[in-house]
């Protein structure tokens, strides 16, 4: 099995002004494509080829296989990143099950939002901020470069890319502004709920 770039699930200009057409073109067509190409090369002819993408992520991390951690990790992260956003997303009204867990485990919406944004701001250099489920509990976290919560024994349900390529064209160095705009205007909470249902 080699990796394939999924089409963007909306038009390139659908997320403007919070994420521009230009950013999505480079991010999807160039960055994600490079992870697909390099990841496919890295697993070709290895036992990884017969595994699911989630299994590949976990095995690569256990085996400290940097090229596969980086590229398969980023392939997984980006497949979901496109789905975690939608035109007219964001807002405080969460689906029922998610709302229950946010209240129970993360101190409610406002605290969850603040902690999630802070995780993104404090990830030094490239990486991701996450909402993930571990041992039945929802938690906020962050990972460097191409890593994701799967590699740390958790199931991601929401993630935001804080590599500079995700926001530099639209926000320059203002990562906090990007994260707040992203959270308030783009998050596709129905997709987050759907991932939570599968945990």
């Amino acid at each position, binding site marked *: 099995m080699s990796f394939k770039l999924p089409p963007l699930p909306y038009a390139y200009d659908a997320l403007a002004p919070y994420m521009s057409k230009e950013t999505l073109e480079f991010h999807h067509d160039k960055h994600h494509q490079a992870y697909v190409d390099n990841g496919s090369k890295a697993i070709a002819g290895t036992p990884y080829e017969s595994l699911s993408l989630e299994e590949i992520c976990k095995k690569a991390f256990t085996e400290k296989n940097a090229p596969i951690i980086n590229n398969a990790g980023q392939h997984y992260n980006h497949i979901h990143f496109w789905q975690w956003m939608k035109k007219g997303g964001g807002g405080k009204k969460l689906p029922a099950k998610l709302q229950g867990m946010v209240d129970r485990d993360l101190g409610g919406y406002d605290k969850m939002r603040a902690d999630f944004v802070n995780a993104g701001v404090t990830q030094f*250099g490239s*990486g991701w901020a996450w909402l993930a489920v571990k041992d039945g509990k929802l938690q906020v976290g962050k990972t460097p470069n191409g890593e994701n919560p799967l590699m740390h024994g958790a199931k991601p349900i929401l993630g935001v890319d804080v590599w500079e390529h995700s926001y530099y064209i639209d926000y320059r160095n203002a990562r906090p502004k990007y994260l707040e705009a992203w959270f308030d205007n783009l998050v596709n909470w129905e997709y987050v709920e759907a991932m939570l249902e599968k945990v």
Partner: protein
Amino acid sequence: MNRRQTLKFLAGAAAFAGTATTIGRGAVAQAKPVFSLPPLGYPYEALEPHIDTATMNFHHKNHHNAFITNLNGLVEKYPDLATKTPEQIVSNLAAVPEAVRTPVRNNLGGHWNHTYFWELMTPGGAKAPAGDLKSAIDGTFGDFDKMRAAVKQAALTRFGSGWAWLAVKDKKLMIFNTPYQDTPHMDNAAMPVVGIDVWEHAYYLKHQYRRGDYVDAWWNTVNWDKAAANFKKAMA
């Protein structure tokens, strides 16, 4: 004194401090921050067309300055920042208390790397290595082009944020990359000769995902007189 009177009193004290500030005496000198952003030694547009003006502006005034702000906030927790040189500290991170080691590593590393980077680039200067540095490059890598190809490879294979270096360790030239804002002194215990920032903010406005094009363009800015001085210091 009730709360309201206290606030009024404090406001009066602040006004008094303000007066002292305007005549430039007393507490003002003590309040001078330990770290300040070193000015660029050339105009922001001086490295065009190789490094664009907008990138230089954001990189120096925002990214580098963020390290300065953070360092000034760390001085109270780690007073050695005010008494030791940055190079002494990044060369012996194990001596930094664990509670502040990561912020010191990231912010002092970022400050050291960027100060070095601005000084290495110039609109003028020698365009190729000469003398002892040229001999060492030729002897170690074959020639100038082969050395540049190896540095480019190190730059392209640093996944995510970091730097690529030509450096000296045990009196020998070597090429490697470092993650985040790690300097060559840290895990590699080496002294740099040239170094290139490959964080995306260093090239995204002009080159976007094409990191290799940025590396190719960047070589045009390297001041080989400065690199020769770095080499001499590292070999001493």
